[in-house]
């Protein structure tokens, strides 16, 4: 079912676009132009990220990642996940393949959840941008609240996912 969903969604979108084209051609064009911009953006970011993941997969031994970010890595592993997330730039979808590669090399689920959330929410240039537009008070209080929230999210996910043996079956290869 999961495999069929994508072609079905594509067909629906194509039909919807054709329908809009029949009524308001200008709106249909607007839809396609917005999509084109995003497509170019994704195509400029995703290939190099995936190449880096490929290189990481080929060169970095599993033992290293397991030692640095595995179940037994403790605070050190979480700090590494945190640093990886903050120094990175780019949209969240660029972090998915990286997180997956780390997970397959033995990083713990908690550390990957922290990595993804930090990548999404706490990036230095983004914080500066938020201060500039929404003010220091707004940006810093949001940051101060987001930090514990991320650790809590990671902890809860670990609690719920580790207990369930079905987890491994449900993680498909990319």
């Amino acid at each position, binding site marked *: 079912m999961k495999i069929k969903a994508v072609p079905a969604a594509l067909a629906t979108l194509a039909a919807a676009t054709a329908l809009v084209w029949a009524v308001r051609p200008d*709106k249909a064009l607007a839809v396609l*132009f917005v999509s084109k911009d995003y497509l170019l953006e994704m195509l400029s970011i995703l290939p190099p990220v995936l190449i880096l993941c490929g290189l990481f997969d080929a060169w970095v031994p599993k033992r290293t990642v397991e030692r640095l970010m595995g179940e037994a890595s403790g605070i050190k592993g979480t700090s590494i996940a945190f640093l990886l997330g903050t120094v990175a730039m780019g949209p969240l979808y660029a972090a998915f393949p990286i997180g997956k590669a780390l997970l397959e090399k033995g990083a713990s689920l908690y550390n990957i959840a922290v990595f993804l959330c930090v990548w999404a929410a706490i990036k230095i240039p983004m914080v500066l941008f938020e201060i500039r537009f929404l003010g220091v008070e707004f940006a810093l*209080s949001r940051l101060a*609240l987001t930090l514990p929230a991320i650790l809590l999210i990671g902890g809860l996910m670990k609690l719920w*996912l580790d207990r369930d043996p079905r987890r491994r079956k449900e993680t498909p290869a990319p």
Partner: protein
Amino acid sequence: MFTVVIWGIAGTGLLLSWCRNRAKTREALRFFWRAFISLAPSILVIIWAIGFILTFLPSGYVLNTIGRSAGIMGVVIAAVFGSIVLIPAFIAFPLAASFLRQGADVRAIAAFVTTLVMVGVLTAPLEMKFFGKRFTVLRNSLSFVMALVIAFIMGVILR
């Protein structure tokens, strides 16, 4: 900027890898190609859907629903809205600032910004491909709840 840097790093890495070990580099490129081909259709769906949402969403309506008079419902709607749309932060922050100036609720704006970065309904199919359904649903729904909590605390702090 990010694009130039990441292409530079990937290119340099590939070159270094090629000089040191051809077989491993070929393995890396095979990894890249398999991942890319399996991701491409989902990405197309996401992008097409964004085109529709950004074209047909009226901004006057948005402002009405997240104003100070809208109360808790406005905060929840802002959080839902932030979860769905996928706009870069450097566009979202000026947009949020202009909503704030026009009288939007601080809590609603905090909820919007937080879910915007942490929750991705449109990218969820992609996330599932990498981490599975349970991981994706848990991470996104927990982030959504946390965004609401953060928003309400900020409403108290910034009053």
